[in-house]
């Protein structure tokens, strides 16, 4: 199974139909294990049981960036390699990525309420995720603004790549801005100091959510291919109707000229 094989949408539909059930099953199994493990993870000595929010917050935050990465690779595929499925992949990923980013924001603010005392703190991480969310929404607005999918695809590809270059810069500036205004950051959890009891469920959940994304993404790509097929068929139908009505008006004009003569 190479990228060339996948370039044909019909082959992609056939292959993905075979892969999807397995992916879905693996997602369900891993999610079940991850949820079980996170339910029985011990309480943190500082944060108590609220540490359980981390098991959904962190995978979603990771996915919010991972999905932008996937879209950037797909955008390169659109602009450089002109892979026929690249814009389908980019378009299908955007709403899913936006949903995960929204979840990261929501769980982050729910996690922050017990720790900060407010739902929203202009904390560096949350702020950069918020900006990322705005960029996802802008990208989706761009996809929706244009009727022709391939024209929208190229514009979205440029924007996605510019965003990918800018995201580290934005992250850096927000971090810098945050240290300027708020010297003591409340949320400190270095990856290395994380206890094994938290790390294993977190990893399982991260893998499970990534699989969830892959499953949803492939399914959404299939829908997008079908939607484009519907669109082209409808346009064929419309042109056929237009053609036949064209013939009709033509003959009518002929009659009219005959009558005038």
């Amino acid at each position, binding site marked *: 199974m190479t990228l060339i094989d996948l370039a044909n949408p019909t082959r992609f539909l056939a292959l993905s139909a075979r892969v999807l059930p397995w992916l879905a099953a693996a997602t369900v199994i891993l999610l079940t294990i991850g949820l079980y493990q996170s339910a029985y993870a011990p309480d943190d000595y500082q944060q108590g049981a609220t540490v359980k929010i981390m098991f959904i917050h962190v995978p979603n935050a990771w996915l919010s960036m991972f999905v932008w990465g996937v879209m950037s690779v797909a955008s390169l595929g659109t602009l450089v390699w002109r892979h026929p499925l690249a814009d389908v992949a980019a378009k299908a990923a955007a709403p899913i990525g936006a949903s995960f980013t929204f979840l990261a924001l929501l769980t982050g603010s729910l996690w922050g309420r017990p720790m900060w005392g407010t739902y929203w703190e202009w904390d560096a991480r949350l702020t950069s995720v918020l900006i990322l969310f705005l960029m996802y929404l802008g990208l989706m607005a761009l996809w929706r603004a244009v009727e022709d999918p391939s*024209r929208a695809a190229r514009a979205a590809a440029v924007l996605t790549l510019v*965003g990918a270059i800018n995201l580290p810069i934005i992250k850096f500036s927000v971090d810098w801005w945050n240290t300027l205004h708020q010297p003591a950051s409340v949320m400190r959890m270095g990856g290395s100091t994380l206890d094994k009891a938290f790390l294993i469920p977190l990893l399982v959940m991260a893998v499970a959510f990534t699989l969830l994304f892959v499953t949803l993404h492939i399914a959404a790509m299939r829908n997008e291919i079908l939607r484009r097929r519907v669109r082209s068929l409808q346009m064929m139908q419309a042109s056929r109707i237009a053609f036949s009505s064209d013939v009709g008006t033509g003959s009518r004009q002929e009659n009219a000229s005959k009558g005038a003569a």
Partner: protein
Amino acid sequence: MTALAALIRRDIRIALRVGGGALIGVLFFLTVVVLMPFAVGPDLAQLARLGPAILWLGALLASLLTLDRLFMADHEDGSLDLITMSRTPLELACAAKALAHWLAAGLPLIVATPVLGLLLNLDMVATGAVALTLLVGTPALTFTGMIGAALAVTLHRGGLLMAVLVLPLSIPVLIFGVAASQAAITGPLSFGAPFSILCALSLVSLVIGPFAAAASLKHGLD
């Protein structure tokens, strides 16, 4: 080189003549800044504290709104097709257009800053700091906004969509621009660090902007 110089000269002349939008940007800047005291109250001390932020926000919005037509007018009268087909690399032509736009619409904003600083109760040092950061920072806004203008012309959409796409990308410039001016006025922080990062951002956008805009025009126009 002469082609680029001719392009710059032409764009500036179009922007400054009757019907060009360059000076409306300054008027918009003035209006936004005048609106601010009605929102936050006429307390002079508070205005002086918020002054750099207000001036930066006004300049950000003004330079974004004037950018809307950067490629649109050329697309309508067909000269954009000539520019894309000419022998000069499209990236350089885009950079030239952005430079012309900045000279016609960005520089007047900076010239207007001292007057507006007076209205906001900023002293000489503060006004100078804001003007200097605007001088260094507005090219970054123009060159980032150019990407949005190029997308807008290929999509036949302008206005709000472009603003929504470009504003998140200009957050770093806003952060370091305001931080540098604040540092010069009150801050314990040194002026140098944020100011040099602002310069770096401008240089980065000088590279990214023309390439992204040219890519968007190349792939998007048909």
